Each structure stands twice: as structure tokens, then as C-alpha cells.
């Protein structure tokens, strides 16, 4: 069952189109991530769901209740939607406990008990209850903001780049903690981020936005492997894109003959492979193989457990350099040095972009 439904949401600021015909369904209890570069309209969309802004046209409903349509709108305070912004936005004139208890309707001992519970759930020490926001670290502020939003048992939780102000190590840990916490509580969540690795790791459903449009949505792995176009492919990670001729389930390209996922005969198209689908093997002086292609390593970027190699392909028949450079990922310790001749083979299918 879908918790949140967006139909044809549009919004302009003057001549500037911020959102154009956004359609999105968010299943109940799922974690949906909206990812896109800065200025793609993802935060505007989130604020619209929260009720801080209103669309020019379109319809928005939550658990079957219409929040916005052409004639009606439910204000933010009646939506029961939690919101955690990038910097936490703690109320500076309230203690941690008062911040967390802000949305609670219970009073007295029960309220204190609930605050203590919430603090425990976000792994905040009980002794912090009487601290002021300016006495907390960035990560602690985010936890308080999360506990504050969870306190009212929201029907939907909106997270606006909540981890981007944290340092890398903490970011990963916070992300896992938040994901687990929200799953345990069964809260439907929407996260907005411009960080594609964060998006891929957090999401059950991924929605990619660009220039005010929602260009593709689906399971993160599907989007990663089968993006609709090159821009989306490159936004979600490194990609090798090259022209090919498709014939009976095979692509013929500079890399040789590669199986493809969708059939189209005698068709010129762009194909895409992820760098981890390419494999390098140091080759013997007299190669006999027929699959794959020969190349020379031109650059080696060592970064511990992985190593990114740049290789230049050689023409499969003449042996001349074709001039095409590819990046290939490999194990850090056993990567061939620059200048070595290698053999490039592929794993799995190549993805064929539909013609635009």
C-alpha cells in the first residue's frame, strides 16, 4: 500500500520553474530517497510535502487523506509529518529535553518518561537532557532533532540532507542508526540528498531529480544498473559509455562482443557498463583469446583497498590504439603498474540506453 502519493505537482517562482509535473508513490513503511544535484528542486518538493510551501497545481495525499489539491490544503501543523532539516534547527531558547518534548501532547511524569525513551532511542545520554543546543556537537544536535521529530509519532518522516553537516565516519554510522530506528518504528521516510552513495545505501526506493523534473524512480540497484540516460548513469556513479551496434542480444563495440539486456537488431545505440563490470588480466606475449580486448594501463590511482586504473583500448584487429580511455576498478594491492599491457573483459550485461 502506498502511504504518500504525488500527482502532477508543479511549482514556479516567477518565470523560474521549480517543479514540473512530479508523480511519485511512496510505499508505506519504506525509505524513499530523492537525489539530485543542487537546485534540482528536491528540497522544494520536500518542503511541499511538509506543508511549508504549496504547489501551483497537482495533488498530494497521505494514507488516503488529501493534503493538497486544487481547492483544499491542510496546513503543516495538521499533517503529522516529521521534518529534520540539514542543520537540525533546534530551538536555541530551549534545552534538549524541551526541544524533544515540544511536539508531545502528554504532560508531567509521562512526558519526562517519553523524553527519556526518545533520547535513549537515538543513543543520547540521559545527562544531556538539560543541556542547551549550543553545548552540543553537530551529531548530537542531529540526534535531538530526530528525537524531536519522532516524538509526535509522525505518519511520515522527512529528512533534508540531515547527514551532510557531519564528518564522514559519523555520517555512515548516523545513517545506519537512523535507517534502523525508522524501520523499527515502521515510519515511512523520505530523505533528500545530493550524495549518491548515501542515496543508494539508504533507499528502498530511489527517485532522481534534475531541473525540476523527476527523471527516474525505482529500486536503487535497478537505477544503478539500468538508468534511463547517460546523465542519470553518471550521477549515480562512474560509468563507461560508448557507441555500439546491437545484434541479436549482443553489442559490438570497442570492447569486443558484450551481451546486452535488451534486444534490438542492427541498431546503433549507446551502451553503458559500470567500471566494476570490467576486469583486467595481465596478458601473455602470444594471446589466443577471442573475447574481450587488449589495452595499455596509462594511469594508476591507488587508494588503499581499491585502485582506479585508466586504460587505453587497442583496436581488436589491427592492434592500433583506438584512443578510447576507460576507468577500471581493481584490487589495490594487485593492480598492474602503468605501462603494462592488459586484457579487458566484461562481466554481466551491458545496458543499452533508449534513444532520446
Amino acid at each position, binding site marked *: 500500500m502506498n502511504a504518500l502519493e504525488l500527482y502532477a505537482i508543479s511549482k514556479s517562482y516567477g518565470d523560474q520553474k521549480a517543479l514540473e509535473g512530479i508523480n511519485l508513490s511512496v510505499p508505506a513503511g519504506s525509505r524513499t530517497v530523492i537525489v539530485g544535484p543542487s537546485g534540482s528542486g528536491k528540497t522544494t518538493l520536500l518542503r511541499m510535502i511538509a506543508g511549508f510551501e504549496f504547489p501551483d497545481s497537482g495533488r498530494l495525499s497521505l494514507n488516503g487523506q488529501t493534503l493538497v489539491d486544487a481547492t483544499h490544503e491542510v496546513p503543516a501543523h495538521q499533517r503529522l509529518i*516529521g521534518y529534520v532539516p540539514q542543520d537540525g534547527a533546534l530551538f*536555541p*531558547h530551549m534545552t534538549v529535553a524541551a526541544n524533544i518534548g515540544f511536539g508531545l501532547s502528554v504532560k508531567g511524569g509521562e512526558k519526562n518518561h517519553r523524553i527519556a525513551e526518545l533520547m535513549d532511542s537515538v543513543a543520547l545520554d540521559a545527562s544531556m537532557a538539560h543541556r542547551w543546543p549550543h553545548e552540543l556537537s553537530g551529531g548530537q544536535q542531529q540526534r535531538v532533532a530526530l528525537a524531536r521529530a519522532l516524538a509526535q509519532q509522525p505518519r511520515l518522516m522527512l529528512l533534508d540532507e540531515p547527514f551532510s553537516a557531519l564528518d564522514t565516519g559519523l555520517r555512515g554510522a548516523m545513517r545506519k542508526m537512523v535507517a534502523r530506528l525508522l524501520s523499527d518504528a515502521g515510519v515511512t521516510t523520505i530523505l533528500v540528498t545530493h550524495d549518491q552513495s548515501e542515496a543508494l545505501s539508504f533507499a528502498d526506493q530511489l527517485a532522481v531529480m534534475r531541473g525540476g523534473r523527476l527523471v527516474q524512480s525505482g529500486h536503487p540497484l535497478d537505477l544503478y544498473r539500468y538508468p534511463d540516460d547517460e546523465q542519470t548513469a553518471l550521477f549515480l556513479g562512474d560509468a563507461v559509455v560508448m557507441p555500439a551496434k546491437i545484434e541479436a542480444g549482443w553489442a559490438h563495440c570497442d570492447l569486443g562482443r558484450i551481451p546486452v539486456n535488451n534486444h534490438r537488431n542492427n541498431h546503433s545505440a549507446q551502451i553503458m557498463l559500470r567500471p566494476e563490470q570490467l576486469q583486467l588480466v595481465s596478458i601473455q606475449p602470444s594471446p589466443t583469446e577471442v573475447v574481450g580486448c587488449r589495452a595499455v594501463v596509462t594511469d594508476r590511482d591507488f587508494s588503499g583497498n581499491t585502485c582506479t586504473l585508466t586504460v587505453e583500448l587497442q583496436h581488436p584487429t589491427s592492434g592500433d590504439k583506438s584512443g578510447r580511455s576507460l576507468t577500471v576498478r581493481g584490487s589495490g594491492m594487485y593492480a598492474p603498474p602503468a605501462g603494462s599491457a592488459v586484457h579487458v573483459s566484461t562481466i554481466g550485461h551491458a545496458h543499452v540506453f533508449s534513444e532520446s
Partner: protein
Amino acid sequence: MPETLPGGVATAIPSNLRRRSRGAFAGRGGAWVIGLSVLISLLSLLPIAFVIGVSIQTGWAAIVPLVFRPRVAELLINTVLLVVITIPLCIMLGLALAWLTERTNLPGRRGWALLATAPLAVPAFVHSYAWVSLVPSIHGLPAGVLISVIAYFPFLYLPIAATLRRLDPAIEDVAESLGLKPWAVFFRVVLPQLRLAICGGALLVGLHLLAEYGLYAMIRFDTFTTAIFDQFKSTFNGPAANMLASVLALCCLAMLTAESAARGTARYARVGSGSARTQRVVRLYWEAKMLGLALQVFTCAMALGVPLITLGKWLIAGGSEVWQPDELMPALQQTLQFGAMGAVLTTCAAIPIAWLSIRSPGRLQRILESCNYITSSLPGIVVALALVTVTIHFARPIYQTTLTVLLAYLLMFLPRALVNLRAGIAQAPVELENIARSLGRSPGRALWLITLRLAAPGAAAGAALVFLAITNELTATLLLAPNGTRTLATGFWAMTSEIDYAAAAPYALLMILLSLPLTGLLYHQSKRTAGR
């Protein structure tokens, strides 16, 4: 997971949630705020309507000889010189004192901060009375500038000090890391952020200079306001005074335009993440420390020493005879009553306009704000006479009642509340209000719990300034108060008019004592920022 909202809001949307205007003010709150602002601003246009009305009645032929004459040019030059010399001096003094008390390790800086606020407790005409008693020959522009700076610099000190306390220290750290020397950090990073405070304070001082009567009358310095007052005294409701008032209104319009241009459209809410650390303190070398202390001592001697010594002299000379409890007590009570009611009314009235001005600045809001400024820049006597005329003709039941007096205070002192409230609301980012709404608080509750709490120091400062202004208000009270009403200010003026300086001293002392705890409150409230 609940399928319906608490309180039974199910899938159908109640009719009271029907769609309103889009834009920055979707929802019911916006319409209310705009409506209230327009209403208050229309009310404040009453005195202007009065001035325009009598101008039309007078006719162009009669206006020309009244406005284009050497006397008007002379008054214009006097007024402009007074403004142009006094305001920069006030800014420099206010800025220097605020920096010393907020950002340095000057010995006793908390005490000095209190003393820099204290001159507000002394009414401007009491300052004048003190200087005339001390140096009987004092007169003209130099005297006008000297006493004006002394009487009005706290209007700049207070907002600047409050803003200095609340600036994000990280911004200064960043500036320094970009290679700026400390003085460059101050001029390129700190000073621009003080723009709102300086503009607001300077406007307030400017409006005072244009409207003050008692101060300049005592030292025989002619400004538009003293001239209007003299005209009114001789011809009561004549066209000559009305025409002078029109020119004064134009002066005020020019000042407003200048302030509006200087304020700009930059965003002044904190944009950094999280909550702030405490401010850094500059360690002064002992030479600088001595210099700073000398400035503080000198300012205190001029602004507090002179009035207190003069008052002491008159009180000793007058002995116990000048203390008449059955005259003083009712005056004190009346002053307290007017002050408290006026302060609450005015601050509440300022909330919608101040909110619009920060959250939705635009042409409408500037027009609304200008309405209030223009009215308050008119001399109290014009406001008072407008109310006299209007109440006699259209609202007889409230003629000569407390309500009319309070209305006059509202019209005259709204900018005092507005400027401070506006600076306070600028410190409460709209995002916090959004969060409160997402946590189930209605827009009104969110405004009350978050923005107004954060703006409370500004609001308290505004209310205290209005209270002080009412305590010291003279002309409008004289004209509008119900028969037999005597406040401390009108009592004081009655005595000095009879050249009984000794008998006036107890009234002046009471006014000062009454205002002193308030300056303490001002000081305390503006310090209680963000939970500290």
C-alpha cells in the same frame, strides 16, 4: 501508524481549510497579519489626514506666502544641521561604547553597559533644564547638538550592543582565517552586520530630533517643532502652524527614504548551522583600557553627572517644602498607569508590522511601515490636535478620555517598539517556525512559542522604550488627558514654566527613579538571549 490525524481530522478536509492566496502567505495567518497591519497603519494616518485636510481647507493661495519665506528657510537649515551633525556623533559614540562593553575586557564592562543605558531615564527636557541651570548662557546649535547626543545616544547603543552579542562568532573566525586583520574583520564583517541596528537606531534618533520640543525650547534653539508649537500657542489652530507641519512631514519622508535605502535587502537571520558559541573577547592593552575607561567616564559625567548634580543642587536649595505628597503621589500613579497601558498596547500593535517587515518584505510592508514612521515623526502636538479635532467631530464619547491619550501614545511611539521588535524577529529564522508547525503547532502557536520568544529581548526593549517615552511625554498628554489629570512630566513643565526650578526638581527626580529600574530591565532582557 495512525490513519487519521489526532482530533478526528479524517480524509475529508474541513471547509475552514479552503485554499487561500499562494505565495509567501499561504494560509490564514498571513491574511490576518496583513489585515491587522493595514488597520494599524490606516489608524496611524489620521494625523497626516488631518494635516492634508487643513491644507486643502487653507488653499494654495494662502499656503505659498506661509511656506516660501525666509523664516522657513532658516528653520530648515537649523533642523538639517542638527540632524546631520547629531546622528553621526550618536552612531560613533553608540558603536564605541557597545564594542567596549560587549567585546573587550574593559574593567567593569557590565556596569558600564548599564550606565550607557541609564541616560534614557532622564527626559530630554530635564537634560536641557540641567545644562541651562549649570551654564545659563548655553544656546543655539552647539548646545542643541551637545544635549541631543547626550540624551539620544542610547537609542543607538542598545540595538548595536544587542546585535553584537548575537552575531555568529564563526563568521569572524572565518574572516580572520581569510587573512583579515582584527580591525579589517571589524569593518568588513562585523560592521556590515550591524547595519540593521545602526539604521534603526539612527532613524529613531532622527525622528526624535525632528519632534522634540522641550529640549530646544529651553535652550532657545529654533527648529520646526518649536516654531510650530509657538504658532499653535499664539493662533491655536491656524494655517501657519499646519503649513510648517507639512514641511516637517516632508523632512521625515526624506529621512525614511534614506534609511530604507541604507537598510538594503540583505538577509540578516543567522544562516550558519546549529546554535552559536559565546562571543570572543578582545584583550585590550592598558593604554587602550585607559582610553576606553576615559570615554566611559566622560560619557557618564555628561549624560548622568550633569543632570544629577543639578537636580541635587535644586533639591538641597528647595529643602522639604518642595515635596508635596498629595501632589506628587497622584502624578506618579497616573504616570505609571499611562506608561504600562501604553507600552503593552503599542508593542502588541507593532507585532504584525514587524513580522511582515522581516518575513515578507515588499512594497506593501514598506508603505505600512512608512505610515507609522511619518506619524510618529510629527510633533506630539500635531498628533494631539489631530485627535482633538477628530474626536470632537466624529467620536465625541472618547474626547478627553484615557483611551484618546493611549491612542496618541500608540501613534507617536509605535516605531520605538517596531524597530526593536524587527531586529529581534530578524534573529529568529523562519525555519524554526516551520519546524514547530511540523510538530503540530498552529501558525499562531508557532509564532508565539518560537519567534516571539526569540524576539522577546527585542520586544522587551521596545516596550521599555515606549514606557520611557510615555513617562517623559509632555505635549500630547497636556492636550488630551481628561481634566485634572497630572503626570510627572506635565507637573514638571508647569513648575519650570513658572521658573520655579526647585519645585520642578522632585518631579524630575521621580521621573528618573521611575525609569531607572526599566533601564535595568532593558539591560537584563537584552542580555538573556538564546537560553543564556
